[in-house]
């Protein structure tokens, strides 16, 4: 489709830019409020930029105070909350789960895609079947299990169920169907062991799917909220989203502090997205295309 008329073109750009603003405004607001001078945070009408930027030039005599006030939210956050701890918890749980999922799901996906063994169909349909079931169904049984295993209020309670998610197995299987079996046969004839064939041939060929699965797993774990607020009740063990919720519950009125916390939680995901944008897009279209 070619847009010929220039008025149409301008209208198109106008509509898209308005939506882009609506889309990015919440994130912009997080950073803008985090850096806003405290006396403007609740201004009516709302101030659209951190006023410190303006006052820095209009009131040169107060520069050090303005700088101090601009970053006061972050200072308070690092001094009076466990934000570093939460950040560290979120990061290491996300890394552990991502690495684990990549290893487990690549192995399982490989077996389902490339091995003819009795029970293969049953395994596959079990996985597809449970993918359709909403997560809320298992909430209560998982809760009882975690309690009985004595894992309540530990990070294991988050890591183990996350490592059991099946979407990755499905994704890896779909991708590995395209690996030519001749290659694997050739390796076998050359006398390579199963394990060696897997690591030297299968894994390198599956790299694009690994990148996609890794990114989506990391993002989901980093942002997960419902299960962590149920099983964690020790502030030292909180992940970022849980920590942010408790901050909100305690300091309803301190928007600047809340938004500073939100900024700390948002930055890593924004960086990951900008760095791996291609894989995000690939991953989305990979999941949606029906063979």
């Amino acid at each position, binding site marked *: 489709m070619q847009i010929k008329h220039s008025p149409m073109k301008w209208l198109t750009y106008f509509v*898209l830019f308005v939506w882009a603003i609506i889309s990015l405004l919440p994130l912009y607001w997080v950073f803008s409020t985090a850096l806003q001078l405290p006396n403007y945070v609740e201004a009516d009408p709302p101030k659209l930029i951190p006023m410190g930027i303006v006052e820095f030039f209009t009131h040169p005599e107060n520069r050090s105070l303005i700088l101090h006030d601009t970053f006061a939210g972050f200072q308070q956050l690092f001094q009076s909350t466990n934000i570093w701890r939460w950040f560290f918890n979120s990061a290491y749980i996300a890394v552990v789960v991502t690495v684990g999922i990549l290893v487990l799901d690549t192995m399982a996906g490989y077996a389902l895609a490339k*091995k003819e063994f009795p029970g293969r169909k049953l395994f596959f349909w079990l996985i597809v079947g449970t993918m359709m079931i909403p997560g809320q169904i298992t909430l*209560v049984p998982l809760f009882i299990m975690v309690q009985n295993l004595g894992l309540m209020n530990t990070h294991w309670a988050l890591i183990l169920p996350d490592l059991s998610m099946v979407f990755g197995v499905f994704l890896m299987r779909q991708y590995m169907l395209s690996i030519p079996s001749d290659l694997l046969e050739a390796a076998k004839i050359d006398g390579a062991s199963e394990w060696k064939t897997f690591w030297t041939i299968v894994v390198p060929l599956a790299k694009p799917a690994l990148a996609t699965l890794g990114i989506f797993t990391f993002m989901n774990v980093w942002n997960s909220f419902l299960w962590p607020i149920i099983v964690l009740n020790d502030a030292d063990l909180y992940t970022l989203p849980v920590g942010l919720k408790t901050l909100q519950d305690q300091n309803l009125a301190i928007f600047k502090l*809340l938004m500073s916390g939100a900024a700390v939680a948002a930055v890593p*995901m924004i960086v990951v997205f900008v760095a791996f944008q291609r894989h995000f897009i690939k991953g989305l279209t990979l999941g949606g295309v029906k063979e």
Partner: protein
Amino acid sequence: MSSPQATEELTKTQLDAKATPPAIRRKSLLREMWKQRAAYLFLLPKGILFTAFVLIPVIWAFVLAFQEYGVFGSEWVGFKNFKSVADSEAFRTALWNTLKYTVVTVPLQVLIALVLATLISPLGRRAQSFFRGAFYLPTVTSMVIIAMVWRWVYNYRYGLFNYVLGFLGVPAQDWLNQSNTALWALIIMSVLIPPGVGVIMYLAAMDSIPDSLYEAAKIDGASEVQRWWRITVPLLKPTTLYLTMLSLIGSFQVFTQILLMTGGGPGHATETLVSLIYKTAFRDLEFGLASAQAIVLFVITLIFGIAQYWLMYRKAED
């Protein structure tokens, strides 16, 4: 390593499978399993986790729904929990709210994605990737953060929403704390969060439509709008159905923003199925009842899903 002789024998036994007595067939199955032992070892680690933390909990959920759960043992109560679900005023309200939310947000989310993708698709490569990124970025940030910002947007005294509506002469409202506006505030928020996933999927699907179709239509004198309506929209049908499905499942499970913005209140004005399940299980500790509610949610989702598939196949035959 098996000798070629063994494999030959095996294919023969497979061919004669129907003719061989079961005892021998069982032996060859075991032999086949032993031959493929590597496959089972590859599956084993995930298999154990999957069984422990997915399969057993799913089965258990269905068992729990027929029990009265107690710390010192559970007793069977048959369909009592489901009866309580059917009779409960709170559940009806939650179901009604969830349906209201779904009926408004799902079509709008899909439609907005289609319109945005249509506008983006003729643009140059750089403009395309800019807008794609702009619409997808909020999707990667936690709903917790988005909900925090929107709480401020709807703030009675200094929120953006009242400020913008002030220009239109609409009096300021406390949107999230009035039972007649709270649900609508959440619906508006869901519609205005850009459908990043939808835009990306539609764009990918549009890319795969051959240009020759458009050229042929052009020669036949079809206008741009006609070409879009007659070629693009019908060919995007599978994507539309897939996105509707995703959006449906998502809106049946809406929860995070409810918990953070209204807590289901005021009263039960913004109670949804999942927020009710959450309260039943973890505030009232009624595990059996919560499981029954979750299963009802699952069945409703399933019904909608099957209806979708049915529409898809029927449409495919047209």
